[in-house]
């Protein structure tokens, strides 16, 4: 809500910043999480997708064909370690606005995937 020329108007927070002549500063995090999972990268990603689907009720979770899983606006990718293909390196990337969920997901995935996921 901003006051301008003696009238009030409701604008998005991004728009409000612009009207105040301020620039927005994007703070982003990318965390590497190591995971032991003896599957190929795409299977590991699918297992992560299933795991998150079962843990996070009411969140928007997508498994995209380009090899990413998206939870709200948090991006998850998988790659294998060069030395050991059973060691997967997950990259989780989120912005400060998603700090709570990003932090939660990085802690959750660090614990590994439950057995019994297909």
């Amino acid at each position: 809500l901003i006051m301008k020329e003696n009238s009030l108007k409701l604008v998005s927070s991004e728009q409000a910043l612009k009207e105040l002549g301020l620039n927005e500063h994007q703070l982003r995090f990318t965390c590497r999480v190591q995971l032991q999972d003896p599957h190929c990268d795409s299977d590991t990603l699918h297992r992560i997708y299933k795991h998150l689907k079962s843990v996070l009720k009411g969140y928007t979770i997508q498994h995209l064909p380009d090899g990413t899983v998206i939870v709200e606006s948090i991006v998850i990718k998988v790659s294998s370690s060069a030395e050991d293909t059973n060691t997967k390196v997950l990259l989780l990337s989120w912005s400060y606005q998603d700090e709570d969920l990003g932090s939660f997901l990085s802690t959750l995935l660090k614990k590994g995937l439950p057995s019994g996921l297909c």
Partner: protein
Amino acid sequence: IEEPPVVLAPKPLLSGAVPLEAFLATLQKHGISEVKVEETADGHILHLQAEDTLIQLEEDGTHIVCDNNEPLRTTLRDLVLRFLQKL
């Protein structure tokens, strides 16, 4: 049992920029002194060598790339936030 955050508290929007020299001094105060600074087209990349962490500082954005080390990440986050306005 892992409980996901039920209500996501909206975070303030950030504004401003992180000044390189002042930020390096702050890192040093927190025991992070092995920092290699590289100039880029849009700002700087800081390589925290002992922590194997990269911080990309630009006029309109900061990107922290680190291993899953929550204490380190949250410390770096809070140090960056000190230099930014919260709205």
